[in-house]
């Protein structure tokens, strides 16, 4: 076991994939730069060569399409978008092409391309350097969406995404890059059977989140325990296709649900989580008490006090969970 942070854990996944799978290559903006993608891909170009670690022109659409094209020809490319915001220039290739090629060609075609979008926000970066938008993408049949909250998942879910035959959108979060964990050596992982997990057991309230929000939920559960509130925490991990069974089981027990999501509220993932719980609620157990904690429905600001109002903290999770107890 080696103590490894989330950012370097992502790099471990690349290293394992490039060393063990000749059909893997990675392509995107900034891959030959020491700073574009944090410490998650440092010197991969020097280790594996610029033919397999390809830095590109500023062409998100063409780069993503090229990843799909290579995937249709036997490769397993990982397309890198240093920010989710930039990735939006390639939405046609992700949503209308990669996600649909299997279905619209009658199930005869696999498109094993992994698109990695990085959430990189805060620090007064403002409206166009802050988006997450995982709910948007999780809406799309045929596109698997994966969002790791721990160092172990950051590494293993990336390996699993690349080894899977469906297109996968893997979204990691720069706010998690320093979070550490003891990791066993890297190896092959299957994405099949991966889904939401209970990170912490509890009986009073269910906290559900993904990515950085799941991390916040765990910290909030610690604080709530000190108040005598036992929170159960579910880390969603795989947003599409979303397996709701952990949510259903947990809320059957707790009767209270706080859906926490580091994105907007309207038509978002938090709403989906509550819908899953509500639809399956056994009326004989009484009403489900549920609430959402999300960003306000406004573009991300730059000004410090507005940014403080925009992003919720662990204390907000604690407060929202406590409110459900009343």
């Amino acid at each position, binding site marked *: 076991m080696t103590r490894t942070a989330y950012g370097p854990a992502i790099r471990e996944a690349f290293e394992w994939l490039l060393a063990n799978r000749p059909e893997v*290559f990675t392509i995107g903006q900034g891959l030959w730069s020491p700073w574009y993608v944090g410490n998650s891909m440092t010197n991969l170009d020097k280790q594996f060569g610029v*033919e397999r670690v*390809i830095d*590109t*022109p500023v*062409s998100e*659409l*063409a*780069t*993503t*399409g*090229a*990843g*799909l*094209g*290579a*995937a*249709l*020809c*036997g*490769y397993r*490319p990982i397309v890198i978008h240093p920010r989710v915001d930039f990735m939006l220039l390639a939405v*046609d*290739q992700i949503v*209308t*092409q990669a996600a649909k*090629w*299997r*279905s*619209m*060609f*009658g*199930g*005869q*075609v*696999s498109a094993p391309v992994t698109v990695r979008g990085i959430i990189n926000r805060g620090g007064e970066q403002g409206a166009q350097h802050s988006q997450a938008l995982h709910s948007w993408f999780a809406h799309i*049949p*045929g596109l*698997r969406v994966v969002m790791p909250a721990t160092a172990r998942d950051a590494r293993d879910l990336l390996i699993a995404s690349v080894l*899977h*035959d*469906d297109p996968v959108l893997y979204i990691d979060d720069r706010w998690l890059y320093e979070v550490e964990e003891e990791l066993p050596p890297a190896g092959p992982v299957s994405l*099949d059977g991966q889904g939401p997990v209970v990170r912490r057991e509890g009986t009073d309230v269910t906290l559900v989140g993904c990515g950085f929000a799941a991390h916040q939920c765990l910290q909030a559960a610690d604080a709530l325990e000190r108040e005598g509130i036992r929170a159960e925490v579910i880390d969603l991990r795989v947003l599409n*296709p979303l397996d709701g069974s952990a949510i259903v089981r947990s809320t059957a027990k707790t009767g209270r649900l706080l859906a926490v999501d580091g994105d907007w509220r309207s038509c978002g993932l938090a709403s989906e989580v509550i819908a899953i719980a509500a639809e399956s609620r056994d009326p004989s157990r009484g009403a489900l008490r549920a609430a959402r904690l999300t960003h306000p429905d406004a573009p991300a600001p730059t000004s410090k006090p507005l940014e403080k109002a925009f992003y919720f903290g662990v204390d907000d999770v604690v407060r929202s969970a406590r409110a459900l107890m009343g």
Partner: protein
Amino acid sequence: MAVNSTPKLVGTDVLGPLADAAEFHGPIALPADAAPYAGAVETMLTIRRAEERIADGVADGTIRCPCHLAIGQEAAAVGVAMHLRATDRAFGAHRSHAHFLAMGGSLHGLFAEVLGKDTGVSRGMGGSMHLIARERGFFGSVPIVGATIPIAVGAGLAARMDGRGDVAVSFFGDGATEEGGFHESMNLARVLDAPVLFVCENNLFSSHLHIGLRQPTNSVARYAVAHGVPHATVDGNDVVAVAQAVEGAMASMRQGGGPFLLECITYRWRGHVGHREDEDVGVARKADHGRWKGRDPIGRLVAGLKARGLMDDGALARTEAAVALRVQQAWAQAVEDPYPAEGELLARTWTTGGAA
């Protein structure tokens, strides 16, 4: 107050005779080794008769899905396909029946697909705009304009990595050159040295709009200059001119050369979508339409072959009859074939775990 409802052409003509409907009506000049072009007649006739069969199906309501016909444009598809091999990777667009058939795709598979049948090339999940024949090197067509151009670049990159001299081909129309992705793709292919043959079938119209209303000139080859890509512009209704340009491009592309843009000037006889000739849309189309039929890629090739003594009326009649029979049999079979089962809806969405 009266308003001016006639849009003004902004584009200047740089194509000259190539875009002039009155030009190139004579027999096609054949090279010394003309034998392969007798086969090209049969392929082009197959495409035309198949699309006429589809047009009839659209007209009588048997076919419901949108069908974009390439009648009149057969030479570009066939000329390119003459120099491809089954391990190449070609991608098409909304108007790709001809590409699919030129590369050896199944007539019955095409008919069954446009009818939404389980025996279609896309198992009835795609229709006219989603054709595929991977075993023949046709990797897929989709109707989002320009969408397969970057995909072809990735296929070209894969071919380069494979190192076996295969190439990628991207078929698209002049309208696609107005998409940003086209320019990103040309530049990316150049930077990556990806062997991609960009084939623009410039039929002078995108839907209802003439290229002169959309671009400053009527040729798209200037974009190749801008992206440092070698290029050629040919009479797209001359299968020999197309094939020879492709042969020349392939010589370098298969030896590790990068991309090439081939612009084929052509004209579609039917409307943008559906079976009608649709003469009432777009500027200049009505006046040119009849004259463009005089630049028929099939008739001119037949005339060329006859002039060289390589085809006579009897041989042509036999070819026509054979094609008609194959079209009729494939259609009859496709009409009888079953539709996909309802459960396939979810099963075909995911590679694993999708079945309800």
